[in-house]
């Protein structure tokens, strides 16, 4: 069986809610039924076959071609299966996904992996603000799974994050790891201002010295045996995080945010 492929025919002016096109919704549907589903686009409802050319049949393997930055909610609450996106995606990529895999060849918009529960999400380009964060007003962001971003991430990476790992090969914006309760965020590039703002627990693992606020305490240099184990867990990824040269165990440790519980840590490669 070949992958169920949606090839975008044209770029609509309004944003499109792609949430019906996930593996678990489509797996028992015949192609004509899938073609007849409707997608909300601005005020209008569009049939799937108005927007996309549909080929293939394996609903567990979905490919979206010619994607662009106005296709929102791709892979919403995904439960198993894989979605591969060729091009960019809009906001809320992998919103609340429970399991399965999403790979994007381009950039992703705001709130990628918002309140993600589990699974694997990979973005080859950049992501917008609030990667792996909670919706406004909610108290829990990403709860599990792994996110790999090969480009840069926007502000507020992992806002209210609770569990899971976020790996960023590029740079992260301001307030990286803000209000996180637990979990791990690793950034190979630079971080913006106020990393770990109001974090309670959790780990920021940084390759470059950040500009930390006064509410983080320097705890000195440490050799941490868990770091090689953490890196070992990445070695199946198609990523610079999997490279043997990436592994280190010597870090400067900062504890904070002392204006919160202060049980979080920022580890900076030495």
């Amino acid at each position: 069986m070949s992958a169920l492929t949606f090839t975008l025919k044209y770029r609509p002016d309004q944003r499109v809610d792609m949430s019906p096109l996930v593996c678990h919704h489509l797996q028992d549907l015949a192609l004509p039924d899938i073609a007849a589903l409707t997608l909300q686009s601005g005020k209008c409802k569009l049939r799937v076959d108005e927007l996309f050319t549909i080929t293939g049949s394996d609903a567990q393997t979905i490919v979206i071609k010619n994607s662009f930055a106005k296709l929102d909610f791709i892979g919403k609450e995904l439960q198993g299966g894989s979605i591969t996106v060729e091009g960019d995606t809009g906001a809320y990529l992998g919103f609340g996904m429970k399991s399965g895999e999403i790979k994007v060849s381009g950039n992703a918009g705001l709130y990628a992996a918002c309140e993600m529960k589990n699974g694997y999400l990979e973005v080859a380009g950049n992501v917008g603000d609030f990667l792996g964060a909670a919706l406004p007003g909610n108290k829990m962001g990403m709860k599990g799974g792994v996110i790999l971003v090969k480009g840069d991430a926007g502000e507020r990476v992992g806002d209210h994050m609770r569990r899971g790992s976020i790996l960023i090969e590029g740079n992260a914006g301001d307030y990286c790891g803000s209000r996180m309760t637990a979990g791990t965020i690793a950034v190979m590039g630079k971080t913006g201002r106020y990393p770990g703002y109001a974090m309670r627990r959790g780990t920021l693992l940084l390759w470059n010295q950040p500009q930390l606020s006064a509410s983080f305490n320097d705890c000195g240099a440490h050799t941490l045996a868990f770091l090689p184990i953490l890196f070992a867990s990445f070695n199946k990824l198609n990523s610079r995080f999997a490279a043997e040269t990436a592994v280190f165990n010597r870090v400067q440790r900062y504890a904070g945010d002392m204006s919160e519980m202060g049980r979080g840590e920022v580890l900076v490669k030495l």
Partner: protein
Amino acid sequence: MLIKLTGGTVYDPASGIDGQQQDIYIQDGRIVKKPAEEVKVDKEYNLKGKVVMSGAIDMHTHIGGGKCNIARTLLPEDHRQDPVMRSDITRSGCGHAMPSTFVTGYRYAEMGYTAGFEPAVLPINARQAHMEMADIPILDKGGYVMLGSDDYLLRLLTAKKDQKAINDYVAWTMQFAKAIGVKVVNPGAISAFKFNQRKLDLDEQNSHYGVTPRDILRVLATAVKEIGVPHPLHVHGCNLGVPGNMQTTLDTIQGIGGLPMHLTHIQFHSYGTEGDFKFSSGAAQIAEAVNKNKNITIDVGQVMFGQTVTASGDSMLQHANHKHASPNKWMTMDIECDAGCGVVPFKYKDQNFVNALQWAIGLETFLLVNDPWRIFLTTDHPNGAPFTSYPHLIRLLMDRSFRNEVLSTIHPEAQKMTTLASITREYTLQEIAIMTRAGAARLIGLKDRGGLSAGNWADITVYTDNNDRQLMFEKPDYVFKDGQLVVVNGKVVSTKWGTTHTVKPDFDASVEKGLKDYFNRFLTMKLANFKISDDEMTEDGRGSITVQPLKGDVA
């Protein structure tokens, strides 16, 4: 246009009609006498076998004012879970615990309610509260202005000014904040909180002003009576939610010395300290005191299980309660020189001993107070539960076996601590009509509302009699507001704008002298800007003001 409602079974306690079959005629928004034979009926509704009551009135519901918007801002997830689409005649919005203004109006009307009164209008924010309520369709509304922790009143008391000065200040504030009643919230304590007191008993002094809650209650209740406001002083007493506060409430009833007083959400003020958990029901003692003291009226503030949000002016108690916030986010704030505000989301759970007993205490209160003219059906929306839970509450009151069924599912220790199972009383339709209609209209002082005799405004609700009272009260067949058919089968079919009920008590113009200095020195607005003019309420073409008569006025 002459409308005839034919053959309905009418429950109209205001004119002593208890379930008689009667025709009702509506013309120009009012109920009229049977016209002469030759007059043509334009529209007739056959209501044979249907139950007809006047439109229900919620005399204590938080539907306007800053705290509503704070609660909305604090709980976006509550709104995300209950989006409301627009239709050709209704606007979009969102619902659940603190619905948007438009949805508030629609949902009330869809339950047969035609009026709601906001009990905590802060004078300094009264304009915003009225503007917000102006956005609530269909319902009539009004506000009780909140006094008792405002610095001006406390200064008057400290300076030992006479009752006349206080009467003038109260009347002036009511008139220019466009109020229909006066409410006092945890008297003096919201001010005391700012001076670092964390509790204030009935006879404890505010450490800065040296006045006690007892003094404040007495002067305000006297003022309300002397300036002729029909609605008695609306009191949210001391020590809300504190185990043992039953004694405070009994002392408050005693201390008012026979003056008319309304004790609001009394369920939260009826707690004892017995039992293993040092938390018990004081409903029996409170009900006995209410039964004995005819000057006292109460509304219950029933707790219902589920997610809601508490919004109160009582910043002292809201601050104390913040550790129970669920989800864990909350705020309290100061309102310049006037009072405070606290918003704490809350989830009442039937398997939580305290919550379960609160639920039982509320029901005990309903069932043990004999006179339905002096007790009112509220959940203190949204503090005990959203107003949409009223039909369920009515079923609990009217159906003993259903009540006992629910009772048997709550926390077992709470079941042991309540006498609810042994109470056999079931409310009748007439008693429900008194509590939610005739009694409420009389308590607030609404002329020509809450009744179905000729001359009344045609606010009418028609239900299909059903032994499942929840289903019955959830979905009225018809609701008329001022003679206009607004709801059919529990769905809004047309909308209109209600009026704002106010009173205009007299005051001596010299009161403004002291107030002007006070405004200039301490407040962020000038005295002239404080005053809400009639034009402000009506100039958008949809608001209107109805001035209700004072006591002693010739009606």
